[in-house]
Structure formats: structure tokens, C-alpha cells
């Protein structure tokens, strides 16, 4: 394993903190994937990694390279932008697909499919 880059101590500390925090958040999110019991609950889990986790690590990366190169390196912003835009698309599509599947299979613990007037469309029981 090669040596990590030589940063000033403050930067190293900051970067380390952010990186570990980010990874920790991502891990927590993924842990949710294992621990939460219903699918619809689990869908929330990856957004931890995609938001705070990614944010921390991307900021860490920005700091790290900006310090290394002695000039602002902010292209990580692009990643955060793209992740922010695309993650909802996937989760949304997935959750809704699951909803329709559950309906098609006649599961009762999901809310009814949309109709024109929301007749008592109250909260459904989200657990299985």
C-alpha cells in the first residue's frame, strides 16, 4: 500500500474527519438496508450515502486536492450535482414499481392506487 499524500496537518485532519464521517454515514445508510424490515422503509436508506455521505467525502476530496494542487479543485461539485439529480429518479421509479407490483399481487398493506378523487386516501400501514 502506497503512502497517502502529504497534506498540511490541518487539512489532513479535516479531510480524515470528513472522509470517516462520510463513510460512516454511508455505512449507516447501507446498514438500514439490512436492518429495516419493509421494502418501503429500506428505500430511504441509500439516500444517506447519496447525500450526507457523498457530501462529506466530496468535500474532503475537494479540500484534499485543492491543497495538494494549491488551486481550487471543485469538479467534485459535478458529482454531487449529478448524484442529487439522478438518485431521486431511481428511488422514485423503484418505489413506484414496487407499489404497483404489490398491487398486482393483491397485497393489502399498501395504499390504493390513485383515483381522481382521493377518497380517504389516508396513511397506509407501511410495514409488512
Amino acid at each position, binding site marked *: *500500500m*502506497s*503512502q*497517502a*499524500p*502529504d*497534506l498540511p*496537518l490541518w*487539512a*489532513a*485532519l479535516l*479531510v*480524515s*474527519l470528513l*472522509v*470517516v464521517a*462520510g*463513510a460512516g454515514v*454511508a*455505512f449507516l*445508510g*447501507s*446498514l438500514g*438496508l*439490512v436492518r429495516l424490515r419493509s*421494502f418501503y422503509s*429500506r*428505500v430511504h*436508506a*441509500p439516500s444517506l*450515502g*447519496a447525500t450526507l*455521505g*457523498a457530501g462529506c*467525502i*466530496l468535500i*474532503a*476530496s475537494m479540500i*484534499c*486536492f485543492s491543497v495538494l494542487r494549491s488551486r481550487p*479543485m471543485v*469538479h*467534485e461539485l*459535478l*458529482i*454531487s450535482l*449529478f*448524484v442529487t439529480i*439522478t*438518485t431521486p*429518479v*431511481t*428511488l422514485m*421509479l*423503484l418505489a*413506484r*414499481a*414496487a407499489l*404497483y*407490483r404489490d398491487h398486482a399481487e393483491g397485497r393489502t398493506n399498501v395504499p390504493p392506487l390513485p383515483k381522481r378523487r382521493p377518497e380517504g386516501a389516508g396513511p397506509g400501514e407501511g410495514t409488512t
Partner: protein
Amino acid sequence: MSALILGWSLTLAQLLLGLAMGCAVLRLLRGPRAQDRILGLDTLYVNSMLLLLTIGMRSGATLYFEAALIIGLLGFVGTVALSKFLMRGEVIE
């Protein structure tokens, strides 16, 4: 010294991300339903992106950035296709 700190913390971060990926794969393997597996894959993608970033930081080179960027920008395509397949039974109508 700072390299050591950074090195250790990056190792720790990689370990944590590895565990995160492990959780995702657990879901991927266990299911029980297709949507769970897809969710696992999506999470796996996000976690790998973060892992790539930590590898990049360790190397001190921005060469690995594009790989992470690809996951960020295009990683969702696979999941979208999978979700749409679940929803509609076909990917492109």
C-alpha cells in the same frame, strides 16, 4: 505524520465503505423481492462511487475521478432500466 493520519483514516473509511457495500450485497443476495435486489445494487453503486473517491484521495491523483463521475452521472441508468422493467415488464416501450 499527516500522511499517516490520512492514510489510517482513509483505510478506515474504505473499510466502512466496504462494510456498507457488504450490507448492500447482503440485500442483493437475500432479496426477498426483486425490488430489494435492485435497491441493493443501487446502494452498491453509490457506495462504490464513494470508495473510488477515497482511492483517488489516497493516490493523490485525480485520474480516478472520471470513474466516480461516470457512476454519478450514469450509474442510475441501470437502476432505471431495472425499475422500469419491474414496473412495465419492458425497458423501452
